[in-house]
Structures are given as structure tokens and as C-alpha cells.
């Protein structure tokens, strides 16, 4: 994880921080520091090949391949496309390799440059050694939003840069253009045109001094549909293997032996779920803290017996962690006490119970509203009347007794359709009507079962009135929390319709916390 962090930092810092560090030195860069041609190289001192290779475990062949493709000084190069899935070190490797070779380059990512104009202008700014600052009103060197203008301006800027590079020593006369996250361009307005343009930029420009490198999260075959597509040279970054991941996580660890023992335990099961460094690192960092809990001295090198002890301490935590995407521990103490309890109590039954408990707070009227929305999304509107009549939907069960082969089949198809369609949408009026029904039923059921404190009849009224107050505010806050989604307006009525985004499990949980008999009201086909 440390590796990933460090590489992230260097990536961020590539161009912007080399300028940022300058800004720290002199707060007004425009006064004393005017950017020179040297700013096109990495800025910091270059690193050796060995350092480069050891910085990126598991990327040896890719780095060597990349260096070969770039070739010795002054070698012209055909366009390259580096591709591979997320967090496989594409950008970092490309940039650090250019740092190693100490070549001048321009880096723009279409993540930060989110439209053609910003992308083009950022490239030109870097080439023209222009820096946005207060004295020029943070404007770009050139205004350019069309590819045709960009080509002309780029040609001009490049020939300037190459002219000055010629006289500067040791940098060669090649400039590299690195465009990161090319796959995002696909989703731009007229993105396929821009992609087509970038892929054929080399042939359009006819300047072999510009080495074009595209970094893409998607494989090349998704670009085939673009008609201007000409194959660049491909360089593939595969997902890290388990051994690579071990090397990556072992980097920058204080106690390598202890961490290696920890990885022995966790790496294999977690690799089955995901092999992304960023995702694994978040889980591992919290798990490692747990792993170290029984230890007094973190510098100790574990022997077999201790490993076994630590393993048995960690083992119950692994399974729930595997089933969690991320662990936001808003109550660290709560987590700690839970951990302690886990040590004592038989684990499996404990989690069972824990799963039943809602892990967030909600007012009871919001809970009712949530259930009402859930019902409105799941039940057909035509059945509302029979569901919420005076008998409280109890007869629902008895309606169909006989189950023939054909009706079973029909039922299956209907179920299939329901799954395909997802939750239905409903107008606000229906939601409020159902809410009113179930809120009153919920109250009366409390009364009948006597679980809640005794209330006098006037209390009922007051309570339900309380529930009804500010109901629209509750609806909007449920919308904000994404439990409800506004799903456009109905073409006939013109009113806004809502849709419940709550899963059945959560709805049942909420209902249980209110002791509301949800299952009774849910229409099952």
C-alpha cells in the first residue's frame, strides 16, 4: 500500500509539483522564475535503472520493453499505447521511465483536462513554457478548442521547443507527449472524433520528433470501432499476480518478517476477490492493525508459535472483511469493543445478531416512510386497496391455494420480469397514502401486542400526527440519502415519480426495528 501511495504521490507531483515546489520557493513565480526548457524533463534528478526496477515490483518486463521502444537518444518513435486495468502502474511506470531516461516530455491527463479545449491548452501551455498565474489572469498561452487549430499551434510550439533543445545538451531532440486516461475521452461530447484525432495525430502532424504515448485503461479493441483508428504499438500491463502483490505490499514495511507472516494469512483469500492494489491496501492496513494487537513490540520477528497465535487471533476477522467493500469506522471505540467481544463470544452467532441490527440511525417516521416507499415500489398499485383495507392485508395469504404446473411457470416468468424491471415508480400521493396506512397499523399493532408502553387513545392521534408532520422534508432527505430516487415525470400526469432504491434485506431490517410486519404487506407473485 505504501508503494501505491508513493507512486500516486509521484504521479501527482510529476509536473504540477515540480512547479509547486518552485512556487514554494518564490511565491510569485512570474517575477523571478521564468520556466525554461529544463522544466520539460522530470525536474528532480533522474533515477538509475536498478532503482526504477526495484520501485516497481512485477513490472520488470514492461519497463524494459518500454525503454527499448523509446530507444536511445534521438530515436524517432511510432505512437505507443500503454494499456491495462486500473492500478497496474501504467502512468507511474511511464513517467518514472521518462525520468530515468531524463527526456523532455509533456504530460496531460484527460481526467483533469476534461474537455478538448482544456486538454489542448494544457499541452500547449507546457510546450510554450507558459504558466498560469495571477499576472496573466490564469489564462492559457493560446486559445484553442478545435483540433485543426491545435495541430497548427502544436506544430509551431514543437518546432520552437526542438530548436531550443538542439542547442541544449544531453536531452536529444525528441519530445514526448504523454496523454493519460485516454479511455475517458470516449465519454466526452464528440469523444470519438477526438480519439480518432489523437490516434492519427502522428500521421497528421508529420513530425517524427514528437513521440506520442497514450495511456488507456481499456484494451485496444474498444477503439476499433472508431474509423480513424490506426494501431499504435501496444504495451500491455497485466494485473499483478499474487507474488507481485506480496512484493508490493512488503515494500516500505518496517517489520518485513511480521508483515510477510501477515500476508501469508490474508493475501490468498483476498486475491480471490480482487487483485487491485488500492482496494487490497485499504483492507490490509486495518487488518494488519488488528493482527498486531496482541503484540507488545512491533519489531519482533515472529516464530512459528507466535504466527499460529496471531493467526488464530486474526482468523475470525477475515471472513467478514472479505464481505465488506470498505470499513468506515466512524466509532473506533465501538469497533474495538466489538473486537473484544468477538474474542470472547462464539463468533458466528455474534455476527448473525449483529447483522440484524441497523447500523445507522433514523427517525421512526423516516423508517415508516422508507417501508412505505419500498411497498409502493414492489406492490402493484391496483392491489393497494385490498392490501390496506380495514383487515390490514391479512387475507392476502389465502387468495391462492391451488398451485398448478402452469401457474407455477407463469409465476416464474412473472418473477423473472419483476427482477428485470427492478423497483417500480410511484407518485407522491400513493406514497403518502401507504405511509398513512402503515403508520396507523404500526401504532395499533404496538398497542395490541403491548410491546410499547401503554398509550391512551388520544395518544394515538397525537403520535400519528407527529409522524405526519414534516413528511415532505423527510421525503426529500430520503431522496438525498439515495434511498428514494426521483425518476422523471410521468408523461400523462406530469407529476414527479419516485422509486425506492432499498434492497429487500434492508427493508426487512428496518421493519424489524419497528416490529412492523412487512412480509404480510408484501405482494408475492
Amino acid at each position, binding site marked *: 500500500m505504501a508503494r501505491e501511495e508513493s507512486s500516486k504521490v509521484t504521479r501527482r507531483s510529476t509536473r504540477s509539483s515540480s512547479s509547486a515546489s518552485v512556487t514554494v520557493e518564490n511565491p510569485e513565480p512570474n517575477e523571478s522564475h521564468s520556466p525554461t526548457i529544463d522544466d520539460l524533463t522530470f525536474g528532480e534528478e533522474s533515477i538509475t535503472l536498478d532503482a526504477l526496477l526495484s520501485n516497481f515490483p512485477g513490472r520488470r518486463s514492461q519497463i524494459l*520493453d518500454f525503454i*527499448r*521502444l523509446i*530507444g*536511445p537518444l*534521438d*530515436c*524517432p*518513435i*511510432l505512437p505507443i499505447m500503454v*494499456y*491495462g*486495468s*486500473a492500478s497496474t502502474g501504467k502512468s507511474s511506470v511511464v513517467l518514472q521511465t521518462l525520468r530515468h531516461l531524463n527526456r523532455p516530455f509533456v504530460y496531460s491527463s484527460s481526467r483533469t483536462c476534461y474537455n478538448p479545449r482544456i486538454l489542448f491548452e494544457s499541452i500547449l501551455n507546457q510546450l510554450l513554457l507558459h504558466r498560469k498565474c495571477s499576472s496573466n489572469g490564469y489564462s492559457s498561452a493560446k486559445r484553442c478548442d*478545435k*483540433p*485543426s487549430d491545435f*495541430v497548427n499551434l502544436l506544430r509551431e510550439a514543437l518546432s520552437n521547443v526542438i530548436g531550443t533543445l538542439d542547442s541544449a545538451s544531453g536531452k536529444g531532440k525528441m519530445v514526448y507527449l504523454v496523454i493519460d486516461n485516454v479511455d475517458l475521452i470516449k465519454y466526452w461530447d464528440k469523444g470519438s*472524433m477526438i480519439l*480518432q*484525432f489523437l490516434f492519427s495525430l502522428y*500521421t*497528421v502532424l508529420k513530425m*517524427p520528433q514528437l513521440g506520442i504515448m497514450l495511456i488507456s*485503461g*481499456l*484494451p*485496444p*479493441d*474498444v477503439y476499433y470501432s472508431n*474509423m*480513424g483508428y*490506426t*494501431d499504435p*504499438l*501496444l504495451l*500491455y500491463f*497485466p*494485473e499483478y499476480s*499474487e507474488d507481485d502483490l506480496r512484493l508490493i505490499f512488503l515494500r516500505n514495511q518496517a517489520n518485513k518478517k511480521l508483515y510477510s507472516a501477515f500476508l501469508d494469512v490474508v493475501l490468498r483469500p483476498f*486475491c*480471490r*476477490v*480482487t*487483485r487491485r492494489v488500492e482496494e487490497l491496501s485499504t483492507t490490509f492496513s486495518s487488518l494488519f492493525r488488528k493482527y498486531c494487537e496482541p503484540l507488545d513490540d512491533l519489531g519482533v520477528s515472529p516464530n512459528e508459535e507466535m504466527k499460529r497465535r496471531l493467526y488464530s487471533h486474526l482468523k475470525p476477522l477475515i471472513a467478514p472483511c*472479505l*464481505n*465488506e*467493500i470498505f470499513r468506515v469506522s466512524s466509532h473506533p471505540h465501538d469497533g474495538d469493543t466489538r473486537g473484544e467481544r468477538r474474542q470472547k463470544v462464539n463468533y458466528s452467532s455474534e455476527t448473525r445478531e449483529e447483522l440484524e441490527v441497523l447500523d445507522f440511525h433514523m427517525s421512526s417516521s423516516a423508517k415508516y416512510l422508507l417501508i412505505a416507499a419500498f411497498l409502493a415500489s414492489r406492490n402493484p398499485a391496483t392491489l393497494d386497496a385490498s392490501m390496506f383495507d380495514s383487515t390490514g392485508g391479512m387475507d392476502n395469504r389465502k387468495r391462492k391455494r391451488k398451485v398448478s404446473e402452469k401457474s407455477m411457470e407463469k409465476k416464474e416468468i412473472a418473477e*423473472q420480469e419483476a*427482477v*428485470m*424491471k*427492478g*423497483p417500480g415508480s410511484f407518485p407522491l400521493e400513493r406514497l403518502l397514502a401507504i405511509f398513512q396506512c402503515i403508520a396507523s397499523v404500526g401504532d395499533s399493532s404496538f398497542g395490541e401486542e403491548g410491546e410499547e408502553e401503554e398509550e391512551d387513545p388520544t395518544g394515538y392521534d397525537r403520535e400519528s400526527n407527529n409522524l405526519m408532520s414534516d413528511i415532505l422534508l423527510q421525503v426529500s432527505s430520503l431522496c438525498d440519502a439515495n434511498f428514494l*430516487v426521483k*425518476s422523471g415525470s410521468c408523461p400523462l400526469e406530469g407529476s414527479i415519480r419516485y*422509486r425506492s*432504491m432499498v*434492497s429487500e434485506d434492508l427493508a426487512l431490517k428496518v421493519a424489524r426495528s419497528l416490529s412492523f410486519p412487512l412480509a404480510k404487506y408484501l405482494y408475492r407473485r
Partner: protein
Amino acid sequence: MGKEIPAEKSLNLIRERLCDPTFVFRPLSASSDSNYSKLKFIVSTSITEGCNNSILLLGPRGSGKAAVLDLVVGDLLEEYPDSVSLIRLNGLLHSDDNCAFKEIARQLCMEHHLLFSKMASFDENSQFIIAMLRECGLAHKTIIFLLDEFDMFAQGKQRLLYSLLDAMQSVTSQAVVVGISSRLDADQLLEKRVRSRFSHRKFLFLPPSREEIDSLLEHLLFLPADSSFPNGYVSQFNEKIKNLTSDARFKDILRTFFNANSTVNSLLKFIFRAVSLMNLESGLLSLENFKAALSSIQRQPKLEAIKDCSILELYLLVCMRRLEVKEQSSYNFISVMKEYKTIHDSFQTSDYYAQNVCLRAFEHLREREVICYAENRGQSQTGEYRLMTLMISASELHQGMRSHACCPAILLKLLDH
């Protein structure tokens, strides 16, 4: 050390050659019935006789249309330096009529040392161009319009093509329009009024023949004897290349390569890859370089994507495949999860994870475009309920899973049944 410098130098030289299309296509245009000679004849007669002409160069991407045209134009500029002026347009950049007129005006201004106004309107620009065409015609100067990606100009109202070709109908003007397109039906895309003004001269660019490839390889790879290389090195290098090109295994490699892609540009890319793998210590190219280049060029992105999947992601893919086999034509995340659960229930697999973890894996698959949403409608639904489709075929899935590093045996079994 003494040897490393010539090796780098030769690498540089060959790479420079590969990146220079005029160098590559020079020998291919030598013969008298090549496209180069025919094209040159037509254009030069229109220059000398002062007539108008329009030509289309058609052929697959990377077959050297633009390079041959550049050769011709370069030669003509040398031969008639005073009576040729060039306007280059690219359909990718200037498919918008307004933009194209502006660019033509800009290039004309550059050429004739006139002041170009960025603010000029479409109308002003087009009047300016027609006036310039007349002036050039009177001065017996031919304007050659090179329209790359010609088919892109045929989109929309084709005003540019119409006004260019219409201006050429007058006696005074003197211009040649050369269109380059990879669409063989490019002239069919033209409107009637444009087509009737277009002379239907077409040149077809075909993939190179065997002999041409051999001579091209020789042309690209042999080092010149008279340069500053040490003498022994040049002969050693050339000897090695000669051995290599006559080797049957090398020919096999070349044949497999050409089975997939037979244009000159792709060959250049292949050689570039091989040359960049050259061992700088020996300074010689070897058969291994070409073998490695072939394997790195023949990629199968879908299989790679499957190899990148984690076990859980493979489970989801298998579930989707099973749903497809069951003739359930459309499915979403929820129905995939149902299938996942039934698999777990009947086989008690060790890989059963919570729904949110699966959803994350699902999103990973979608990011890699192994799966995608079936339709763009239904944006209001959350991702779980939107219809999905697999982007890989069953055989690719099979092949990819078999070559996966740690695919569980049960998954392969599940895929079959």
C-alpha cells in the same frame, strides 16, 4: 564499448527510416506502372497544360496513399517551383465547412504573404478563395488541394467540395483536387451536384506483393556501405540480414504476420518492434527479435482481460454465461446474483461473497468492458437493475479461463453444464 556506438547508430538509422514514409515508399514507386508514376503524369500534365483535374486515391488504411502523394507533390514542387501551390486539408480536422474555408484561406495567405484575418466570415473566406483561384489561374499557377480522409468531407452539405469543384468549372481557374480515402465507395457518397462535377479518376492501392516486400525489407534493413560505420560492422550486419531474410523460419513468421494484416504500415510497425528489440551489445538483428515482435503484436485483448479477472469475477462471468445458455436473453445484476446463489447452494463453493462485494467485482468487469449495459435507456434505474450483456464469446471465455493462472476446476465444469 567501441561496438556499442555503431549499434546504437544503426538502430537510430533504421528507426529513422521506418518513421519516414517518403523513404519507405520511394523504391515501391520506381516502376513505370506504379501509382506513383501514373499520378505524377496526370498531375504534371494538368500543371503544364493548365487544366483542372480531380483524382481519388483509394485503398486500405496504411497502404501508403498519402506517402505516395507526398512523393509526387514533392517532386513536382522541385520541378515547377513557381507554378504550384499546395493546400492541405484533413477530413479529421476540417470536416466542418466553416473551418475548412478558414484553413484554406489561412494557407493561401501564408503562401502568398497576405495578411490572414481570423475574424473573416464564411462568405468572405469563400469569396477570397474564388478570387485567389482566378488570380492563380491567370498567373498560370496551379493550386493542388490535398484532401486527406476525403469521405469526411462528404458528410453534411458538402459545401466545400461543391464550391471547389464548381470553381474549377470556369476556364480561368487552374486547380487539382486530390482526395484520399480508405472508403472504396468514397465517390458514391457525393451528392449529385458534386458528383457531376467530379472527374471519376480513381487509383487503387493494393497490398504489396511478395517481391515488393522482399525488396522493401532489403531497402529498410541494409546499412549503407559508404557511411561512417566501421567497415567490418556494416558487412557483418548486412550478412546477418541476408541470412535472416532467406531463412525459412523468418519467412514463416512473415507469412503469419501477413495473414492478419497485409498493409505496408503494419509491416513497418512490425519491423519497428523487432528492431527496437535489437541486442545493442552484439549490434545485430536476430530471428528471436522478430519472433518476440510477432508475439507482442498479435495480442488478444479479450483473453488478457479474462486473465486479469479475480476468481470472484470469473464466477460472475460464468453465471452470466449460464444464464445465456439457459436462453434467458436478458439479465441484470440481481438475476446474476440469483444464479450465483443457486451455484453456491448446489455445490457449496468456498467463494461465496456478500452482494456488495459482488457488485464491486461487477463494476470492475464493466470498467474493463468485459460486460456492458445492454442499452443506454433506463438511466434512472440503478446499475443493479439495468440489463447487461457479455462482451466476450463463449469460446473466448473457455480459452481465457483455461489459461487463467488459478481458475478453480469447478468453474470450468460449471461453464460446460
